[in-house]
């Protein structure tokens, strides 16, 4: 094992480098956001990051949507944190990478209802001076997208070249094209779906139950206390299993033991197998960074998401969209399956949209899109380049309203 060195950490040249999270305040009175659920919410603070340079024509914007527990820090490094840990999509966003920051201006923002700088249940309700907790309105994916659309508008960006996201991020990307048919040049939805399966709802339900049943939950008013950390960790452990595949668990852990050579026959030893140890570690780490209330709200938003219901039919959702679509799935993903992606592709074909579909081979299950970035880049890079070159042309084939 290498010993600790005092050598200063060098940010790799392939990175966007040092970045800072910025915030914008939107929907200030008297113009609150009217949510899908009928509540009024405002002002809303949004945390976001940008990489690359906005072109003078403002036509090179790529909006990145993060997955369930992600944040605005998609690429690069923060000054005041552990410099060795870059943004969550570092291998995919940067100079010469899948989303090339030499060409594109990349924006990533934390979602409404989150806990990473964007207004969510942990934020102070200006009306009461206290944290929203469970008084925070239930938000939908559509609300999240509307807040992000508004963010871009205030940044002076009316139209994006592409909206890109995986998993819950892919759902947001699909919603973008449905909500703003003329403002999106392309949608890249990876390992995603037009609605989650009943099985996913089942997993989310158990996760939420674990949080709600924790004695420390205190009806959501646990701020300043330790909070439902066991429940939240349990929810994360459960969810984490759904992100892996049988093959990837087998490959990474097998039946190997963590600290012992032999089985201990001790019922209460928590981390006997390596996979146990790994899940406990994931749970622990998650508790340190995520708000249990946000987890409740965001999994609920995910469960509620249903493009078919919102727009009458799946193909109707994008019938006015001028966007090109790239839909991708992974063969070992059992949480967001290939057949769910194909359902979107079929619907897009019913109204003759420009749609491409690819099923990647990867052993890593749902997590593949965060791991197999080279594979993903091989499709995304030419897709974006082609979209960009046709985007720049006078809009010959684009419908305009």
């Amino acid at each position: 094992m290498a010993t600790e060195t005092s050598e200063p950490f060098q940010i790799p040249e392939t990175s966007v480098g040092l970045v800072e999270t910025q915030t914008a305040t939107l929907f200030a009175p008297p113009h609150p956001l009217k949510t899908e659920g009928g509540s009024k919410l405002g002002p809303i603070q949004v945390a976001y990051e940008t990489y690359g340079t906005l072109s003078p024509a403002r036509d090179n914007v790529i909006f990145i949507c993060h997955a369930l527990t992600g944040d605005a820090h998609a690429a690069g490094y923060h000054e005041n944190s552990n410099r060795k840990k870059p943004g969550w999509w570092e291998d995919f966003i940067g100079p010469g990478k899948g989303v090339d920051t030499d060409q594109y201006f990349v924006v990533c923002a934390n979602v409404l209802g989150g806990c990473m700088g964007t207004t969510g249940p942990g934020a102070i309700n200006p009306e009461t001076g206290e944290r929203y907790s469970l008084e925070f309105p239930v938000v939908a994916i559509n609300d999240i997208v509307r807040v992000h659309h508004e963010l871009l508008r205030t940044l002076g960006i009316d139209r994006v070249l592409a909206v890109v996201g995986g998993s819950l991020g892919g759902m947001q990307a699909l919603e973008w094209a449905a909500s703003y048919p003329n403002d999106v040049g392309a949608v890249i939805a990876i390992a995603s779906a037009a609605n989650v399966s009943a099985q996913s709802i089942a997993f989310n339900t158990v996760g939420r139950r674990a949080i709600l049943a924790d004695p420390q939950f205190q009806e959501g008013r646990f701020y300043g206390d330790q909070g439902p950390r066991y429940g939240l960790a349990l929810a994360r452990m459960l969810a984490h299993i759904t992100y892996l595949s049988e093959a990837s668990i087998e490959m990474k852990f097998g039946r190997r033991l963590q600290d012992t050579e032999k089985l201990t026959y001790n019922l209460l030893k928590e981390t006997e197998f390596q996979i146990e140890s790994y899940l406990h570690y994931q749970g622990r780490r998650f508790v340190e960074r995520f708000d249990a209330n946000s987890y409740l709200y965001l999994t609920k938003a995910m469960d509620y998401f249903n493009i078919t219901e919102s727009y009458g039919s799946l193909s109707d959702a994008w019938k006015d969209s001028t966007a090109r679509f790239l839909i991708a799935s992974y063969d070992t993903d059992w949480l967001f399956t290939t057949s769910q992606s194909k359902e979107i592709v079929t619907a897009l074909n019913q109204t003759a949209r420009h749609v491409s579909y690819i099923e990647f081979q990867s052993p890593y299950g749902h997590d593949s899109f965060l791991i197999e970035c080279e594979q993903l880049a091989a499709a995304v890079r030419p897709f974006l380049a082609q979209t960009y070159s046709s985007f720049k042309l006078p809009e010959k084939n684009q419908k305009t309203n």
Partner: protein
Amino acid sequence: MNSAADTGIEYDAAQPHDLKPNMRRYCMPNPELTLTDGIIISHIEPSSRVIDLGCGDGRLLAKLRDLSDCSVMGIELEEKGVLETISNGVPVIQANLDHGIPEIPSGSFDWAVMSQTLQQVRHPKYALQEMIRIARRMIVVVPNFGYWKVRLQVVWQGRAPVTEKLPYSWYNTPNLHLMSISDFRYLTVGQLNCRIVKEIPIINGSAVERAWASNLRAESVVYILESPLA
């Protein structure tokens, strides 16, 4: 373009030990792609909606889009082809024709093209039925295993025919179904009730319409078909 193709004869280069030194095996030339592409493009009206099943790198579709202002879509099985097609700016869906293409709605295309693919699918009849379902008219390019050199090879050398320039043998060829012109007509007209609008044999590297004894002389054939649903 190349002399070997002119004679129509090549050695099976990858397995020289497989053959006696003077035993020559006929290799069916890959019909000039530019030739068949040209024929296909000339038959498709501008602004048509076209789908290419087994589109490879999407080259034909890109031409149809650029030259004829067609609205195009590709179907391809191999990831490499899918990525190349995306690079050509052509929408493409990765799918296995053996499982059908339920992603494509019925009657949604003016033309369905299948060039040098039908002989490689597991269920050619099903693939043709899918074409009939999704398009009014079809263009199919197939090798003709009724070609006299193929026949000679079987008769004189007693060996399975080798097609195209790749040194495939019977045990590793992508060509699963060998058909002659008569066979193709029997399936499309006799079984599937299609109408053959045109049959264009490729003989010695050129398209010869109204050729005599085409089942003997053609290396491959371009068919323009009309769906019974049209």
